[in-house]
């Protein structure tokens, strides 16, 4: 609590100056309003606050060092949702119209349930929803879901990358035959989201797919891992979230399961998940469309211009700078900035509307050269987003926990589109039929 009181005191102390500075920024009419739906309290706050700090730090960097995107600075406003989609709806309605004359070009939902809750509204209001590595897998199909962007890697894609990596570990797809892969999952939409793809891949490669649910929050898992043990798995995939991850790893170790033969999902692979698991987590792997680490070039820039100048949004920048969730935020903000840059080439250097931003995002190409300029080589994959493909990337790296940090053990592993795409098409068609949507025609 004392930390909160200090921050209130600090807030009051600098309130006057901040009001003046935003006043100046708004006066020239060249700001882009960005509502951020955050959860700095509630069960997922520990991941969330790093994520939002990453985003804010990158936006601060663009504002302070580059003078905005082609001169258009960001005006950020946060809305607390506590990871509750109902509150996200309220925040959405409050922020969709923009603020002080600056339109809302995109909304970062930071939560798959919130993306679902806002999908229909965003289609009506023509505001792109940003949910990289989250959201409905089928929203990769931009013709049915024009305003949803599950950039980088969908949940289906995460299942596919997991199997590809496991095949590599066994020395090739032919060796998957007869192997048993047990998925221990958060019993929720998120946890189940990769099941259809695992079923398909099990058919294709002949491995046995076993799915075992864990109820939220999962702080006691003895029964579950006894069951896993009984299955004698050749590999274990964890699709957990929050406290469920470290408890799962520790309990697995106790039951004699080889934790170096465990692969965590995107949201089960952050430092905050590993530290509580202690030695049990050493050698544990995790899928990383957003690898952890602070050695990427962009981190040098952030360190010099944001962290060292005391402008960072991180509460503890010594420990958390370069954490996986911080990097998630940096990458998300960078994707938004790139989308804006591309849209501005067509619409001019001014604050953008949602429809203009849609064009920018759907024409976004980030190649190796651009990654180098951004200082994100190795942190972000090459992307090519089109109206048909809102994922754009479809690859992830795998990182291994060493006991005090992450070590990248693979290059970018691509999704098997031949398996995933038909599933996505089928789901998207089903959704379009259920909701009475006619897919867009794009030339």
């Amino acid at each position, binding site marked *: 609590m004392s930390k*909160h009181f200090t*921050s*209130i005191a*600090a*807030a*009051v102390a*600098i*309130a006057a100056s*901040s*009001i003046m500075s*935003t006043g100046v920024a708004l006066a020239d009419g060249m700001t882009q309003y960005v509502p951020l739906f*955050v959860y*700095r*309290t*509630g069960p997922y*706050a520990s991941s969330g*606050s790093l994520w939002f700090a990453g985003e804010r730090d990158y936006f601060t960097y663009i504002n302070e060092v580059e003078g905005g995107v082609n001169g258009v600075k960001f005006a*950020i*406003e*946060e*809305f*607390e949702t*506590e990871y*509750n*989609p*109902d509150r996200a*709806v*309220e925040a959405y*309605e*409050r922020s969709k*119209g923009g603020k002080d004359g600056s339109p809302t070009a995109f909304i970062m939902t930071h939560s*798959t*349930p919130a993306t*679902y*809750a*806002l*999908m*229909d*509204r965003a289609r009506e209001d023509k505001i792109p929803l940003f949910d990289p590595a989250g959201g*409905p*897998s*089928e929203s990769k199909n931009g013709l049915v879901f024009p305003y949803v962007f599950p950039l980088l890697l969908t*949940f289906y894609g995460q299942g596919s990358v997991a199997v590809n990596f496991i095949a590599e570990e066994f020395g090739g797809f032919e060796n998957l035959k007869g192997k048993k892969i047990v998925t221990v999952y958060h*019993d*929720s*939409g*998120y946890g*189940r*989201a990769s*099941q*259809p793809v695992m079923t398909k891949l099990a058919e294709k490669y002949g491995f046995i797919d076993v799915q075992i649910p864990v109820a939220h929050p999962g702080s006691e898992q003895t029964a579950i891992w006894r069951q896993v043990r009984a299955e004698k798995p050749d590999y274990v995939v964890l699709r957990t979230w929050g406290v469920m991850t470290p408890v799962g790893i520790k309990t697995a170790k106790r039951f004699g399961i080889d934790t170096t033969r465990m692969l965590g999902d995107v949201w089960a692979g952050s430092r905050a998940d590993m530290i509580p698991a202690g030695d049990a987590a050493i050698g544990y792997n995790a899928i990383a469309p957003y690898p952890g680490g602070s050695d990427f070039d962009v981190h040098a820039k952030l360190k010099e211009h944001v962290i060292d100048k005391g402008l960072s949004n991180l509460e503890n920048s010594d420990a958390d700078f370069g954490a996986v969730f911080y990097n998630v935020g940096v990458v998300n903000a960078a994707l938004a900035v790139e989308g804006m840059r591309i849209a501005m080439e067509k619409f001019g250097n001014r604050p953008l509307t949602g429809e203009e931003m849609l064009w920018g995002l759907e024409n976004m190409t980030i190649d190796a050269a651009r990654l180098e300029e951004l200082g994100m080589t190795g942190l972000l994959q090459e992307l090519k987003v089109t109206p048909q493909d809102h994922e754009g990337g479809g690859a992830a790296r795998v990182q291994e926990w060493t006991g005090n940090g992450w070590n990248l053990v693979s290059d970018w592993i691509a999704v098997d589109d031949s398996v995933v795409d038909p599933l996505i098409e089928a*789901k998207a068609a089903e959704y379009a039929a*259920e*909701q*009475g949507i006619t897919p867009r025609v794009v030339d």
Partner: protein
Amino acid sequence: MNSVGAKPTPDLNAIGQAGSGRGTQSWAFLALLAALVLVPLITTEYVTQVVVLPVLVLGLAGLGLNILTGYAGQISLGSGGFMAVGAYAAYVLAIHGGITFFPLTLLLAGVIAGLVGWVFGLPSIRIKGFYVMVTSLAAQFFFEWLFLKFPWFYNYGDVPTISLPPMGLFGLDINGSYVIKYYFTLAFVVALTWMASNLIKSHVGRNWMAIRDMDTAAGVIGIDSKKYKALAFTISAFYLGIAGALWGFIFLGTTSVGSFQIDRSFQILFIIIIGGMSSIRGNYIGAAFIFLLPLVIDYFAKTFIGDTVSPGVLSNFQKFLFGALIIIFLIKEPDGIDKLLRQLMGRVRRWGRKRA
């Protein structure tokens, strides 16, 4: 005292205001109704859709719980569960049953929730007070589990979120304009509130209050307490079910079990504690208070302090404030804001009479 929600003396004020206040009351009511009808015309989309509409729906849910807790004296923590039943029933009726005439879907969803409420009310015949609350808690967790466990309830989607297919309403699309949504909700809420108010003034309501005030005495004077308790559970769940479907599909649009968890049950309970037990108006007053206070705090913080206070701090501050308010209300004024308003009105009237 047979249960936690019981009040020591019957509050006759709650049964239709007798005497001189009557005229002023109905004028105030008509003025309020007129104001509500005008909302979409004179305010913004935001106010209509995100301020007034959810307050109406939460108020309706509060009314549902108030029937059970405030009038019949059975405390429940299963409100969220029954709201979920309503929402999922509406979805299943539309998707699997093909019933897309929205008012009918909604009523049937309410009836299904009512039947479910009847089943979960059965234990109240044998057990009392605190233990009834525990069975309602069981209902809450049972439905959270049920709707996640069986994919049929969310039409075999990858993710257990539900949103209605296009729904008809005399040729209008219910998912379309917010104005349609608002008037539809308003009409439903007003009609249901009017029904509840009549029900409470009838012998049913009097029997409920008799059971609430003393179960045994009610039995002695010939009230079939089993029947009326079961009825209270049924009708309460009917209201909660409809409120759940409205919340899920009219306010949110897309919903999931996440919108109807235990914190929703507590929210509804706080609405009736703060608004006023055994009061119809109190539900809406309480809903407005609970739903709008966070928005007001947020608004003032952003206007006067700027963006420098982390919203997390504000959110914790709200929880602190709610906790304090609930304790204060329970100790100082168990009849809630409604009673305070009534006292204030009475004082104004007496003052007016003195002047005249």
